[in-house]
């Protein structure tokens, strides 16, 4: 009984931040607000979205998102509102523009360069495959001699 109560208490704690907030009456608007909150970074907690964070300022931003959606703003308008104040940093998906080209293209460019390097390496290896296999007569004799010697020694 006690354990059951403890489990319920812990589950309740997990739900508390979400339940404590005033939600929008229209479930579709509420869903939009929640989806949008997931792509907005909590500016004080580095790698958490505003939807996941229990920080005070994250609560405020969630309230602002709800308020603006209730006022009929589009998702993009809400994003613009926050970017004007906190910069692109506030979005988990930074926009594709000159200052973020390295961010978006960089990994693919590195992959491409690495791929070319690997391809060159294997092509070169394929171009000179027979080198090890072919021994001249002198070498063959040496090998034979060495193998013989081992037999004797053993």
């Amino acid at each position, binding site marked *: 009984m006690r354990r059951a109560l403890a489990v319920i208490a812990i589950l309740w704690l997990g739900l508390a931040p979400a339940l404590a907030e005033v939600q929008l009456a229209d479930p579709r608007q509420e869903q939009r607000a929640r989806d949008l909150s997931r792509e907005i970074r909590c500016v*004080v907690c580095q790698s958490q979205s505003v939807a996941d964070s229990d920080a*005070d300022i994250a609560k405020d931003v969630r309230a*602002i998102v709800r308020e603006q959606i209730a006022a009929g703003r589009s998702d993009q308008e809400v994003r613009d509102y926050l970017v004007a104040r906190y910069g692109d940093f506030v979005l988990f998906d930074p926009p594709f523009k000159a200052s973020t080209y390295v961010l978006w293209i960089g990994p693919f460019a590195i992959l491409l360069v690495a791929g070319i390097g690997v391809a060159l390496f294997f092509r070169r290896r394929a171009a000179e495959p027979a080198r090890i296999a072919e021994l001249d007569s002198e070498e063959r004799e040496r090998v034979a001699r060495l193998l013989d010697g081992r037999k004797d020694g053993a």
Partner: protein
Amino acid sequence: MRRLLYLLPIAVVAILVALFWIGLDPERDKSMLPSALVGKPAPAVDLPALAEGAPRLTLDSFKGQLVAINFFASWCLPCRAEHPVLKELTTELGIPVIGIAWKDKPEASRAFLAELGDPYAATGTDESGRTGIDFGITGIPETFLVDANGIVTYRFAGPLSPEALSDVLVPAIREAKK
């Protein structure tokens, strides 16, 4: 051409070293994000005054001069620490400082200023924290410089120390006055 190819891994490592060098700099403060507001007009401020009976706080009455805007609260310990520096900013450098009590009960902010002294030319209360978000603050204390044309020229996040005042804020003020 082939020689150049051999240099490629070294170049890649050099770039990575440079990135890590910057990224792992212990002096680098992750909270010092470049403010999106710098170079833009200061957000509108229209807040109830902290002092009872005083007119509402707006930036209009400070147009035409360089001002500092400081977000503080009585519950904020670093605000207490930076308090003497704010006084210095007004008395030594002659920059009016506008105080905005962020998410604080007005009685508590008033008691805070009564205890430590009031360095502010004018003070407003932002109980909802909405004006703070308009300024893009991530916490308090934060201090902004707004030039004579109402443009935000500088943002300082965190408590102002005497060193920060002389090394960072004073040059920023000089720049803003140009």
